[in-house]
């Protein structure tokens, strides 16, 4: 019998602070509690936007979900598997994570080798690897970039290739950290269309509220490490007072052009 998963991601009372003398992270946040008692779950294959001002813990929350930060308190379940050091290989085979900066995601010489990196690590035959790479590149509409040297690519191309690297692993869930950052309008539009065409559980952390409005079913508003509000995207993103109280603004498309204020 096939087990139906209702909640692909479930967080129960997550709290997290960076260690004071962490060896690997040199962050201004050292010692500060970044997340406080955060609980939420995804419902079916939905797209959830995580919004909030700078430094409220959006990226940290995503890093916890893939086990890049493990010294949290509370419980994180990915497809009902608790995120622990032991379960990381299994968890990471189910989740694709998109870094904010594509240069952190892409480290091979060519697009093909980078997209093939994940499937090869999971021991797939080279024929299967090629199939997956071509499928991922096809989904992102970048098959023509297959053999392109990564250093020669534009920011938009790099972003598309970065998403292809996670699609090639055929995850159930994808986490995207500021995916539209540094994209020009054309590439941003292509990204939005692509995200809407992907049938995965999606968690998108972003300041780009217009993009969140177009891609997410539900939104979680974070402030000072806590969930302030959670609900249907349009309801939250139309609430001007709420957004402004927590350092955000209405999405541009809902504001209307009022001329330049002098």
């Amino acid at each position, binding site marked *: 019998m096939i087990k139906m998963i209702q909640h692909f991601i479930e967080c129960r009372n997550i709290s997290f602070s960076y260690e004071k003398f962490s060896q*690997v*992270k*040199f962050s201004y946040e050292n010692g500060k509690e970044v997340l406080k008692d955060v609980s939420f779950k995804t419902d079916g294959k939905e797209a959830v936007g995580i919004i909030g001002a700078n430094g409220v813990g959006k990226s940290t929350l995503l890093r916890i979900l*893939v086990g*890049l930060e493990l010294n949290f308190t509370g419980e994180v379940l990915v497809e009902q598997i608790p995120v622990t050091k032991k379960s990381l*290989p299994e968890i*990471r*085979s189910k*989740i*694709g*994570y998109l*870094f904010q*900066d594509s*240069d*952190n*995601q892409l*480290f*091979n*010489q*060519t697009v093909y*080798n980078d997209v*093939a*990196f*994940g499937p*090869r*690590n*999971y*021991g797939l035959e*080279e024929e299967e690897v090629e199939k997956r790479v071509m499928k991922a590149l096809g989904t992102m509409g970048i098959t023509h970039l297959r*053999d392109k*040297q990564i*250093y*020669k690519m534009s920011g938009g191309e790099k972003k598309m290739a970065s998403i292809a*690297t*996670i699609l090639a*692993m055929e995850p159930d869930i994808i986490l995207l950290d500021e995916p539209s950052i540094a994209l020009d309008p054309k590439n941003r539009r292509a990204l939005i269309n692509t995200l809407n065409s992907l049938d995965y559980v999606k968690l998108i952390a972003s300041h780009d509220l217009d993009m969140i409005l177009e891609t997410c079913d539900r939104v979680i508003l974070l402030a000072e490490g806590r969930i302030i509000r959670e609900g249907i995207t349009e309801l939250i993103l139309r609430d001007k007072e709420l957004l402004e109280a927590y350092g955000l603004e209405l999405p541009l498309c809902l504001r209307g052009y009022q001329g330049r204020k002098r």
Partner: protein
Amino acid sequence: MGKLTNAVYEIHVLDEMAERDTGINQVHPLVKLIVTVVYITCAVSFDKYNLLGLLPFLIYPLILFELAGISIKSCIKKLKVVLPLVCFIGLFNPVFDHTPLFKIGNIIITGGIISMVTLIMKGTYALMASFLLVATTGIEKICYALKLLHLPSIIVTQILLTYRYITVLLSEANAVFQAYSLRAPRENGVKYKIWGSLIGQLLFRSMDRAGNLYDSMLLRGFQGEFYYARSQKGSGSDYVYLFSWLGIFIALRLINITGYLKVFF
């Protein structure tokens, strides 16, 4: 400042050369690695005064430059950082070794001069052969060849990651120095007083970037071992290439070709 941008660019150009489709690029990486190692071993094994024995070894890089379509000029340009070091090491030989070997007109050529020239030649040969190996094979395939030789995977991975992180370090250094120079337009270099904080900044940034890259690898199933592009099987032409060069190197090492050529002059 522009030097750092150039350095990053040069590394990318080298990677790009390795991705080309020339005949020499298609030769099995293990074959090219063995040929290079044997070539360097044979070249450096000559006696320090055996200048004439070394000369014919120039044939290997010359043929490879032609086959790979790489200009010698571009190679020399890339090696100009290391070549002075090689020259510097040999520079003291004429000071310490005064053994007269022969005369050209009235000038006595000492053992020190000849040993200096042979040392420079050996260094240049080794550097050119290594450059040609990287430029026609690529670091990933070289690492694949090292794995075929059963070198411990931890060492192979270290070599690969070191190569990859060089560009990360250079890019970060470039960003830091560019930011500095834009706010210190009247200075030619970096003030010695702020070298400390600048280097510290560079270290932190590089570690952070390297950490992010490593995270990205872990998230895609990396468990300490690289799985390289499809395994390449040796073909007949690979064997011909291998044994031809090995034959030539051994012949040049054992037979004094230049001695025979003297008969004609």
